[in-house]
Protein backbone atom coordinates (compact mmCIF):
# COMPACT_ATOMS: atom_id res chain seq x y z
CA UNK A 1 0.00 0.00 0.00
CA UNK A 2 1.24 3.48 -0.79
CA UNK A 3 -0.18 5.08 2.36
CA UNK A 4 1.53 4.78 5.73
CA UNK A 5 -0.52 3.50 8.62
CA UNK A 6 -0.03 5.93 11.49
CA UNK A 7 0.10 4.89 15.11
CA UNK A 8 -3.44 6.03 15.92
CA UNK A 9 -4.87 4.21 12.91
CA UNK A 10 -2.98 1.05 13.89
CA UNK A 11 -4.49 1.33 17.38
CA UNK A 12 -7.92 1.75 15.82
CA UNK A 13 -7.49 -1.29 13.55
CA UNK A 14 -6.28 -3.49 16.39
CA UNK A 15 -9.13 -2.38 18.66
CA UNK A 16 -11.62 -3.02 15.87
CA UNK A 17 -10.22 -6.51 15.18
CA UNK A 18 -10.27 -7.47 18.88
CA UNK A 19 -13.74 -5.98 19.35
CA UNK A 20 -15.18 -8.44 16.79
CA UNK A 21 -14.72 -11.24 19.34
CA UNK A 22 -16.96 -10.77 22.39
CA UNK A 23 -14.99 -13.43 24.29
CA UNK A 24 -11.64 -11.98 23.28
CA UNK A 25 -9.03 -13.25 20.87
CA UNK A 26 -5.31 -14.10 20.88
CA UNK A 27 -2.14 -12.60 19.49
CA UNK A 28 -1.56 -14.86 16.51
CA UNK A 29 -5.13 -14.51 15.29
CA UNK A 30 -5.11 -10.73 15.78
CA UNK A 31 -1.89 -10.51 13.76
CA UNK A 32 -3.32 -12.56 10.89
CA UNK A 33 -6.53 -10.51 10.80
CA UNK A 34 -4.75 -7.17 10.98
CA UNK A 35 -2.48 -8.33 8.16
CA UNK A 36 -5.53 -8.96 5.99
CA UNK A 37 -6.32 -5.25 6.28
CA UNK A 38 -2.92 -3.58 6.23
CA UNK A 39 0.65 -4.54 5.52
CA UNK A 40 2.34 -5.02 8.85
CA UNK A 41 5.48 -6.67 10.04
CA UNK A 42 4.63 -9.46 12.46
CA UNK A 43 6.86 -8.08 15.17
CA UNK A 44 5.00 -4.75 15.20
CA UNK A 45 1.85 -5.99 16.83
CA UNK A 46 3.07 -7.07 20.24
CA UNK A 47 4.11 -3.56 21.35
CA UNK A 48 0.73 -2.22 20.18
CA UNK A 49 -1.19 -4.83 22.16
CA UNK A 50 1.01 -4.30 25.21
CA UNK A 51 0.51 -0.55 25.16
CA UNK A 52 -3.25 -0.76 24.56
CA UNK A 53 -3.32 -3.06 27.56
CA UNK A 54 -1.40 -0.53 29.66
CA UNK A 55 -3.74 2.22 28.49
CA UNK A 56 -6.67 0.21 29.83
CA UNK A 57 -8.11 -0.23 26.35
CA UNK A 58 -7.48 -3.99 26.35
CA UNK A 59 -7.59 -6.52 29.17
CA UNK A 60 -5.88 -9.90 29.10
CA UNK A 61 -6.75 -13.26 30.56
CA UNK A 62 -5.36 -16.74 30.13
CA UNK A 63 -7.56 -19.52 28.89
CA UNK A 64 -6.63 -23.16 28.66
CA UNK A 65 -6.41 -24.42 25.12
CA UNK A 66 -5.05 -27.80 23.99
CA UNK A 67 -3.26 -28.43 27.28
CA UNK A 68 -1.61 -25.04 27.64
CA UNK A 69 -2.55 -21.51 28.58
CA UNK A 70 -3.19 -19.08 25.80
CA UNK A 71 -3.33 -15.34 26.42
CA UNK A 72 -6.55 -13.67 25.30
CA UNK A 73 -7.13 -9.98 24.63
CA UNK A 74 -10.49 -8.34 25.13
CA UNK A 75 -11.67 -4.75 24.62
CA UNK A 76 -12.47 -2.87 27.87
CA UNK A 77 -15.17 -0.23 28.25
CA UNK A 78 -12.48 2.39 27.86
CA UNK A 79 -11.28 0.58 24.75
CA UNK A 80 -14.80 0.74 23.33
CA UNK A 81 -14.98 4.47 24.00
CA UNK A 82 -11.63 4.90 22.29
CA UNK A 83 -12.73 2.76 19.35
CA UNK A 84 -15.90 4.81 18.90
CA UNK A 85 -13.82 7.96 18.98
CA UNK A 86 -11.50 6.54 16.32
CA UNK A 87 -14.46 5.47 14.19
CA UNK A 88 -15.99 8.94 14.31
CA UNK A 89 -12.62 10.57 13.56
CA UNK A 90 -12.00 8.18 10.69
CA UNK A 91 -15.41 8.81 9.14
CA UNK A 92 -14.88 12.55 9.22
CA UNK A 93 -11.33 12.17 7.86
CA UNK A 94 -12.31 9.76 5.08
CA UNK A 95 -15.30 11.90 4.19
CA UNK A 96 -13.14 15.01 3.81
CA UNK A 97 -10.58 13.24 1.62
CA UNK A 98 -13.33 11.66 -0.50
CA UNK A 99 -15.00 15.05 -0.77
CA UNK A 100 -11.79 16.56 -2.02
CA UNK A 101 -11.24 13.82 -4.59
CA UNK A 102 -14.81 13.95 -5.84
CA UNK A 103 -14.82 17.72 -6.04
CA UNK A 104 -17.61 18.40 -3.54
CA UNK A 105 -15.29 20.07 -1.08
CA UNK A 106 -15.89 23.77 -0.58
CA UNK A 107 -13.04 25.85 0.77
CA UNK A 108 -15.05 28.93 1.56
CA UNK A 109 -15.01 30.63 4.89
CA UNK A 110 -14.63 27.71 7.24
CA UNK A 111 -11.68 27.62 9.60
CA UNK A 112 -10.24 24.17 9.95
CA UNK A 113 -10.68 22.70 13.40
CA UNK A 114 -7.53 21.74 15.16
Amino acid sequence: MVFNTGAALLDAIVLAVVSKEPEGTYGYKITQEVRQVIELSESTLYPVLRRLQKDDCLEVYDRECAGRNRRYYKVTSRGWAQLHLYEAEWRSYADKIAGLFEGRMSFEGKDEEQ
Partner: protein
Amino acid sequence: MMNRAEFMRQLEALLQGISPTEREEALQYYNDYFNDAGAENEQDVIAALGTPARVAENIKRDLSGSGYGDNPEERKPTGRHDMVEYQGTRAREIKEEKKMSTGMIVLIVILAVLASPILLGIGSGVVGILTGIVAAWFGLIIGFGVASILLFVILVVLIAAAVMTIMAGDIIVGMGLIGGGLLCGGIGILFLMLTVAMAGIATPAIFRGIASLCRGLFGGKQTA
Protein backbone atom coordinates in the same frame (compact mmCIF):
# COMPACT_ATOMS: atom_id res chain seq x y z
CA MET B 1 18.77 -21.91 9.99
CA MET B 2 17.54 -20.80 13.42
CA ASN B 3 14.83 -22.80 15.17
CA ARG B 4 12.19 -21.69 17.61
CA ALA B 5 14.12 -22.53 20.76
CA GLU B 6 17.17 -20.64 19.53
CA PHE B 7 15.03 -17.66 18.55
CA MET B 8 13.41 -17.51 22.00
CA ARG B 9 16.74 -17.93 23.78
CA GLN B 10 18.26 -15.04 21.86
CA LEU B 11 15.19 -12.90 22.40
CA GLU B 12 15.29 -13.52 26.13
CA ALA B 13 18.97 -12.58 26.22
CA LEU B 14 18.28 -9.39 24.30
CA LEU B 15 15.49 -8.41 26.67
CA GLN B 16 17.73 -8.45 29.76
CA GLY B 17 17.66 -4.66 29.89
CA ILE B 18 13.92 -4.38 30.61
CA SER B 19 11.88 -5.15 33.72
CA PRO B 20 11.22 -8.86 34.48
CA THR B 21 7.45 -8.33 34.14
CA GLU B 22 7.80 -6.85 30.67
CA ARG B 23 10.21 -9.59 29.68
CA GLU B 24 7.84 -12.33 30.88
CA GLU B 25 4.92 -10.72 29.03
CA ALA B 26 6.84 -10.49 25.77
CA LEU B 27 8.26 -14.00 25.96
CA GLN B 28 4.84 -15.44 26.75
CA TYR B 29 3.39 -13.61 23.78
CA TYR B 30 5.94 -14.98 21.33
CA ASN B 31 5.70 -18.46 22.85
CA ASP B 32 1.94 -18.33 22.29
CA TYR B 33 2.60 -17.03 18.83
CA PHE B 34 4.75 -20.00 17.87
CA ASN B 35 2.25 -22.40 19.43
CA ASP B 36 -0.70 -20.92 17.58
CA ALA B 37 1.14 -20.78 14.28
CA GLY B 38 1.82 -24.52 14.61
CA ALA B 39 5.09 -26.43 14.47
CA GLU B 40 4.84 -26.81 10.70
CA ASN B 41 4.95 -23.02 10.28
CA GLU B 42 7.90 -22.48 12.62
CA GLN B 43 10.29 -21.39 9.90
CA ASP B 44 7.69 -19.11 8.29
CA VAL B 45 7.08 -17.39 11.60
CA ILE B 46 10.77 -16.87 12.23
CA ALA B 47 11.17 -15.48 8.71
CA ALA B 48 8.21 -13.17 9.19
CA LEU B 49 9.32 -11.95 12.61
CA GLY B 50 12.81 -11.22 11.38
CA THR B 51 15.78 -11.45 13.70
CA PRO B 52 15.37 -11.64 17.50
CA ALA B 53 17.27 -8.34 17.59
CA ARG B 54 14.55 -6.64 15.56
CA VAL B 55 11.77 -8.06 17.70
CA ALA B 56 13.60 -6.98 20.85
CA GLU B 57 14.19 -3.52 19.41
CA ASN B 58 10.47 -3.07 18.74
CA ILE B 59 9.60 -4.06 22.30
CA LYS B 60 12.23 -1.82 23.86
CA ARG B 61 11.41 1.16 21.68
CA ASP B 62 7.81 1.12 22.80
CA LEU B 63 8.80 0.80 26.44
CA SER B 64 11.04 3.85 26.15
CA GLY B 65 7.93 5.72 25.08
CA SER B 66 9.09 6.96 21.69
CA GLY B 67 6.47 5.27 19.56
CA TYR B 68 6.68 1.99 17.73
CA GLY B 69 6.41 0.42 14.34
CA ASP B 70 8.77 -1.09 11.84
CA ASN B 71 8.56 1.84 9.50
CA PRO B 72 11.17 4.46 10.45
CA GLU B 73 8.87 7.26 9.24
CA GLU B 74 6.28 6.22 11.80
CA ARG B 75 8.75 6.27 14.62
CA LYS B 76 8.82 9.97 15.26
CA PRO B 77 8.42 10.77 18.92
CA THR B 78 5.16 12.64 18.46
CA GLY B 79 3.96 12.14 22.01
CA ARG B 80 1.29 9.81 20.72
CA HIS B 81 0.96 8.25 24.15
CA ASP B 82 -0.23 11.60 25.44
CA MET B 83 -2.59 11.78 22.49
CA VAL B 84 -4.23 8.53 23.54
CA GLU B 85 -4.48 9.78 27.10
CA TYR B 86 -6.00 13.00 25.88
CA GLN B 87 -8.42 11.24 23.58
CA GLY B 88 -9.41 8.82 26.28
CA THR B 89 -10.11 11.71 28.61
CA ARG B 90 -12.03 13.45 25.90
CA ALA B 91 -14.14 10.37 25.28
CA ARG B 92 -14.94 10.16 28.98
CA GLU B 93 -15.79 13.85 29.11
CA ILE B 94 -18.12 13.53 26.16
CA LYS B 95 -19.86 10.65 27.88
CA GLU B 96 -20.22 12.55 31.15
CA GLU B 97 -21.56 15.62 29.38
CA LYS B 98 -24.12 13.47 27.63
CA LYS B 99 -25.16 11.86 30.90
CA MET B 100 -25.46 15.21 32.68
CA SER B 101 -27.53 16.86 30.01
CA THR B 102 -29.87 13.89 29.62
CA GLY B 103 -30.32 13.76 33.38
CA MET B 104 -31.04 17.47 33.53
CA ILE B 105 -33.56 17.26 30.70
CA VAL B 106 -35.36 14.34 32.35
CA LEU B 107 -35.43 16.22 35.66
CA ILE B 108 -36.81 19.36 34.06
CA VAL B 109 -39.45 17.41 32.18
CA ILE B 110 -40.56 15.58 35.36
CA LEU B 111 -40.70 18.84 37.33
CA ALA B 112 -42.63 20.55 34.56
CA VAL B 113 -45.13 17.67 34.36
CA LEU B 114 -45.61 17.55 38.13
CA ALA B 115 -45.94 21.31 38.47
CA SER B 116 -48.04 21.79 35.35
CA PRO B 117 -51.52 21.89 37.06
CA ILE B 118 -50.30 24.44 39.61
CA LEU B 119 -48.31 26.47 37.11
CA LEU B 120 -51.14 26.37 34.61
CA GLY B 121 -53.68 27.43 37.26
CA ILE B 122 -51.56 30.26 38.61
CA GLY B 123 -50.48 31.35 35.16
CA SER B 124 -53.97 31.42 33.65
CA GLY B 125 -55.32 33.13 36.78
CA VAL B 126 -52.75 35.91 36.61
CA VAL B 127 -53.25 36.30 32.86
CA GLY B 128 -57.04 36.38 33.36
CA ILE B 129 -56.87 39.05 36.09
CA LEU B 130 -54.49 41.22 34.12
CA THR B 131 -56.59 40.87 30.96
CA GLY B 132 -59.70 41.74 32.98
CA ILE B 133 -58.14 44.88 34.47
CA VAL B 134 -56.84 46.06 31.11
CA ALA B 135 -60.19 45.30 29.39
CA ALA B 136 -62.15 47.09 32.14
CA TRP B 137 -59.90 50.13 31.94
CA PHE B 138 -60.19 50.44 28.16
CA GLY B 139 -63.91 49.58 28.40
CA LEU B 140 -64.38 52.56 30.75
CA ILE B 141 -62.45 54.85 28.42
CA ILE B 142 -64.44 53.71 25.38
CA GLY B 143 -67.72 53.91 27.36
CA PHE B 144 -67.05 57.47 28.54
CA GLY B 145 -65.95 58.49 25.05
CA VAL B 146 -69.04 57.02 23.37
CA ALA B 147 -71.29 58.55 26.07
CA SER B 148 -69.81 62.02 25.51
CA ILE B 149 -70.25 61.71 21.72
CA LEU B 150 -73.89 60.62 22.20
CA LEU B 151 -74.49 63.51 24.60
CA PHE B 152 -73.10 65.97 22.03
CA VAL B 153 -75.36 64.42 19.38
CA ILE B 154 -78.33 64.84 21.78
CA LEU B 155 -77.26 68.48 22.35
CA VAL B 156 -77.30 69.17 18.61
CA VAL B 157 -80.64 67.37 18.12
CA LEU B 158 -82.28 69.18 21.06
CA ILE B 159 -81.01 72.62 19.89
CA ALA B 160 -82.31 71.87 16.39
CA ALA B 161 -85.66 70.76 17.84
CA ALA B 162 -85.75 73.90 20.03
CA VAL B 163 -85.11 76.20 17.03
CA MET B 164 -87.94 74.51 15.12
CA THR B 165 -90.28 74.74 18.15
CA ILE B 166 -89.49 78.43 18.70
CA MET B 167 -90.05 79.14 14.98
CA ALA B 168 -93.37 77.30 15.32
CA GLY B 169 -94.24 79.81 18.12
CA ASP B 170 -93.91 77.64 21.24
CA ILE B 171 -91.13 79.66 22.96
CA ILE B 172 -91.46 78.07 26.44
CA VAL B 173 -91.10 74.49 25.17
CA GLY B 174 -88.25 75.68 22.97
CA MET B 175 -86.46 77.21 25.93
CA GLY B 176 -86.97 73.93 27.84
CA LEU B 177 -85.49 71.97 24.97
CA ILE B 178 -82.47 74.31 24.80
CA GLY B 179 -81.98 73.91 28.57
CA GLY B 180 -82.09 70.11 28.29
CA GLY B 181 -79.67 70.25 25.33
CA LEU B 182 -77.20 72.43 27.19
CA LEU B 183 -77.44 70.10 30.23
CA CYS B 184 -76.63 67.14 27.99
CA GLY B 185 -73.78 69.14 26.41
CA GLY B 186 -72.38 69.95 29.84
CA ILE B 187 -72.43 66.29 30.92
CA GLY B 188 -70.93 65.40 27.52
CA ILE B 189 -68.02 67.79 28.12
CA LEU B 190 -67.54 66.22 31.56
CA PHE B 191 -67.37 62.71 30.02
CA LEU B 192 -65.06 63.96 27.27
CA MET B 193 -62.70 65.42 29.86
CA LEU B 194 -62.80 62.14 31.78
CA THR B 195 -62.05 60.18 28.57
CA VAL B 196 -59.16 62.45 27.65
CA ALA B 197 -57.81 62.35 31.18
CA MET B 198 -57.99 58.52 31.35
CA ALA B 199 -56.72 57.80 27.84
CA GLY B 200 -54.26 60.64 27.39
CA ILE B 201 -52.85 61.16 30.87
CA ALA B 202 -53.60 58.27 33.26
CA THR B 203 -52.89 55.35 30.81
CA PRO B 204 -49.39 56.53 29.77
CA ALA B 205 -48.66 57.30 33.40
CA ILE B 206 -49.68 53.74 34.44
CA PHE B 207 -47.54 52.18 31.66
CA ARG B 208 -44.61 54.33 32.70
CA GLY B 209 -45.15 53.19 36.27
CA ILE B 210 -45.19 49.49 35.26
CA ALA B 211 -42.09 50.00 33.11
CA SER B 212 -40.13 51.66 35.89
CA LEU B 213 -41.27 48.90 38.29
CA CYS B 214 -39.89 46.25 35.87
CA ARG B 215 -36.64 48.19 35.50
CA GLY B 216 -36.39 48.41 39.27
CA LEU B 217 -36.90 44.63 39.63
CA PHE B 218 -34.34 43.74 36.93
CA GLY B 219 -31.90 46.32 38.21
CA GLY B 220 -32.22 44.82 41.68
CA LYS B 221 -31.47 41.34 40.31
CA GLN B 222 -28.44 42.53 38.40
CA THR B 223 -26.85 44.26 41.36
CA ALA B 224 -27.68 41.40 43.75
